[in-house]
């Protein structure tokens, strides 16, 4: 019997070959296709030009020369820099005091404020831009009408003009400051109370402690927040397309988009995309350096309750400030959207007399493309969420458990898309998939690839940290008791990660619904999604329909999140951590 054993073992080992290595190699290949392919085509196109005679591409730097000398490109470049700098400074000016008020003072309704700012994340920036159009267009804008009504100013005078550089900066700031706010507020949460107490013990008053200890400790987070705000403002497509184009100027993203209008100039678009790519990579590196390795952790226990500063009578101006700030991305725009949804004309106030459901009827019945766009959005959202979660799960497992050699490369590839702005990815994918062997342009597949690539980094980071939180000994214990690697994944790891997986799935789904910059480069009439449809409707001035669509997008979002969480077998498990 003892002699037969080794042979038997060897035989079974051969039969039960470990599939992990080939499987993971396959995933690495998928990642390469997702990330490396579009970027390579982008770079290749930016430095070559097609020779019509021989059909061969030859090397040239002419595109870059045009990019940095032709006013048609230099002006958008300067505009982009102006917008990015101004809105990141504004973000900081608004978000830092708000973050501090919420995290470190006894201001009333602190939790509600946090919740509301987080909620403004859910609003797609392009929807916000449309809402602000309804509010502050020079002639018809609700706020301008109010101004004329109150002051009796003549019909051609206006208080705000959203179609302007300052208007654009304002709207971008509205939907970028939550990033800075969350970073600062979390950083302030994590400053241990004992550091402040030490300062207080040495005789420093509350305010002095705040000035000398608390604020310097939160400074890195603020700096990182500014960088993120800069980045967001730079790569945003929706808001400038909605506000800058009517005003007659371009930012880099709208310029790149316009290069794909007739006649298409993909080489110039590729060349114009590269600076965005390079600056993004640099900014992310800078942010990484500033925040250090632990900077991303939003989780993490508090040591002790922080010392809350008593505001006293200052609570009143503080609350006024906070409410005013939140009203800009949230209360006013949603008021405008609701109003437009039920009003015969978007910029007329709804009254019981003129309230109408015509917009809803028009959007869902008369407008032929709605059904298709909704279907596409839903299919793409679900598919991207599923595929993205699976990819993130496998790569997260491989890197967190260091299951294969080369797991670092996998991790790097999975995080790399974070540095590719949506519009740049759009250009890259356009160049990659309009040619054989894979002509995916014009199908939903190319959008799926775009969405998965865009959402992969965040999904991967979420799931990888979830894997890290699961002690590997939990898996080892299952193995040694007789379970194979797969059985262990199914019976131990999966149940422990269920909530995280679900959260990641919802996160991707929601982000996919609101994505516009890549979709705008890749859609065709058959593959329209809701965000693109909204953009189209804007061009034909259908503000009522946009409002209806925008609001139904949000309803869909919440419905999916709630629905998935209620699904039997998911959520609500009796999870207890040791």
């Amino acid at each position: 019997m003892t002699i037969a054993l080794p042979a038997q073992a060897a035989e079974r080992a051969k039969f039960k070959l470990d599939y992990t290595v080939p499987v993971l190699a396959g995933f690495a290949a998928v990642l390469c296709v997702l990330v490396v392919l579009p970027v390579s085509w982008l770079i290749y196109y930016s430095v070559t030009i097609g020779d019509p005679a021989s059909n061969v591409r030859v090397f040239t730097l002419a595109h870059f020369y045009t990019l940095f000398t032709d006013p048609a490109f230099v002006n958008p470049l300067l505009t982009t820099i102006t917008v990015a700098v101004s809105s990141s400074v504004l973000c900081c000016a608004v978000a830092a005091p708000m973050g501090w008020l919420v995290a470190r003072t006894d201001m009333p309704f602190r939790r509600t404020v946090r919740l509301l700012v987080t909620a403004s994340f859910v609003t797609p920036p392009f929807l916000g831009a449309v809402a602000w159009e309804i509010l502050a267009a020079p002639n018809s804008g609700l706020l301008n009408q109010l101004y004329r009504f109150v002051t009796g100013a003549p019909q051609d005078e206006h208080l705000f003009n959203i179609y302007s550089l300052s208007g654009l900066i304002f709207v971008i700031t509205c939907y970028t400051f939550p990033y800075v706010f969350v970073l600062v507020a979390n950083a302030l949460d994590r400053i241990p109370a004992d550091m402040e107490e030490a300062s207080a013990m040495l005789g420093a008053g509350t305010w002095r402690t705040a000035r000398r200890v608390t604020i310097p400790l939160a400074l890195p987070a603020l700096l990182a927040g500014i960088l993120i705000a800069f980045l967001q403002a730079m790569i945003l497509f929706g808001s400038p397309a909605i506000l800058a184009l009517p005003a007659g100027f371009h930012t880099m993203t709208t310029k790149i988009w316009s290069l794909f209008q007739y006649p298409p100039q993909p080489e110039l678009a590729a060349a114009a995309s590269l600076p965005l790519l390079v600056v993004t990579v640099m900014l992310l590196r800078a942010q990484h350096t500033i925040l250090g390795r632990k900077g991303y952790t939003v989780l993490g226990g508090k040591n002790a309750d922080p010392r809350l500063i008593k505001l006293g009578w200052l609570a009143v101006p503080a609350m006024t400030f906070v409410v005013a700030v939140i009203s800009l991305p949230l209360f006013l725009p949603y008021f405008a959207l609701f109003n437009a949804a039920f009003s015969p004309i978007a910029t007329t106030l709804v009254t019981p007399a003129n309230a109408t459901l015509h917009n809803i009827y028009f959007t869902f019945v008369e407008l032929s493309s709605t059904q298709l766009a909704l279907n596409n959005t839903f299919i793409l959202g679900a598919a991207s969420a599923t595929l993205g979660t699976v990819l993130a799960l496998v790569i997260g497992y491989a890197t967190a458990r260091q299951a294969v050699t080369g797991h670092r490369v996998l991790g790097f590839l999975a995080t790399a898309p974070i540095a590719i702005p949506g519009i740049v990815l759009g250009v890259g994918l356009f160049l990659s998939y309009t040619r054989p062997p894979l002509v995916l342009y014009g199908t939903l597949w190319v959008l799926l690839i775009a969405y998965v690539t865009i959402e992969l980094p965040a999904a991967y980071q979420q799931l990888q940290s979830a894997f890290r939180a699961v002690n590997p000994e939990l898996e080892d214990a299952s193995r040694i008791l007789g379970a194979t690697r797969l059985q262990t994944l199914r019976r131990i790891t999966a149940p422990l990660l269920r909530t995280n997986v679900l959260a990641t799935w919802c996160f991707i789904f929601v982000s996919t619904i609101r994505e516009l910059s890549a979709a705008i480069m890749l859609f065709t009439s058959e593959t329209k999604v809701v965000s693109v449809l909204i953009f189209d409707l804007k061009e034909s001035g259908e503000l009522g329909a946009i409002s209806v669509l925008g609001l139904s997008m949000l309803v869909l979002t919440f419905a999916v999140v709630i629905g998935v969480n209620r699904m039997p077998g998911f959520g609500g498990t009796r999870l207890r951590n040791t």
Partner: protein
Amino acid sequence: MAAVELRGLTKRYGEAAVVDRVSLTIEHGHLVCLLGPSGCGKTTTLRLIAGFVEPSEGEIRVGERLISSPANTVPPERRNMSMIFQSYALWPHMTVAENIVYGLKLRKLDRDTIGKKLDAILATTKLAPLAQRYPGELSGGQQQRVALARALIVEPETLLLDEPLSNLDANLREEMRFEVRRLHDAYRYTTVYVTHDQAEAMTTADLIAVMNAGKIEQAGTPEDIYDRPSSEFVARFIGSSNVIRGVGLAGGRVEFAGVPLRCVGAKVEAGASTPVSIRPHDIAISLRQPGDTDNLVPATVVRQVFLGGSRDYMVESKDGTQLRVVTAAAESIPQGSAVWLGLPPDRCRALTG
């Protein structure tokens, strides 16, 4: 039949050998402790035995069966071993009972058998009232017992324990040491136990293998290791020991502070620097020169401390070497006194290296 045998076992990460040519035979039913400081390679050795790590060189056999070699490593699930982890690794989403029967369910036993075995092990480990609780609701000691129960119920050929008591508080740890030994005596599984705590090793082990820098420095019974350390590392690591440096003389003696010491232990080479270990409580201390015996070293008392049950001296010999001496509490010699140290020849162990 199921003796575990390690032959020239080596594990390298890059250039560094974490486990370096370890050979060890573990008799069937014995409990062997791998004892050493953190980073000495003991946990890696255990994980090699468990099959979580593949060896770079060497092999592991259970009975006649080859289970680990660089060419072929049987995965952990087919080794018929079980393991108790430092973190206990109880699955938080399963109740105590579900945790314990996990291994049996994998073995596809029928429901009645599983029920019977569960009841038996719950009784042995005094866990019956807690069967339906979740691990998060248990104290550290209870979690420890669940981990033991889960590992024992599958009746493994080999049981592996990785610092199982290090997360318990001091009192409980002392109690659990005896518990581990009691359960081992009851079940007699071949057991490999990893710890850095020498008291734990002394209490539980049939055989202690002291590890340092990836190598086994010495393997022997607790008495062997304590009374007859073969290297300076072992002498210092196990209990406290004075290790003095002398020079080998012809005839096997070692010259220390001008005194030719008679020693036991390793063979002494003339002219070679030779470490000699002697335990603090083996040294006799006296104000007057006691007769004409060997191994008398003159010294001065640097300080003395009264510890209640004993008295702890620090003395310095002529060449400046400081030695610790522990004597009965009654024997008080003031600081600064010139004294004679009697180093019993059978207690002076010449060491290698």
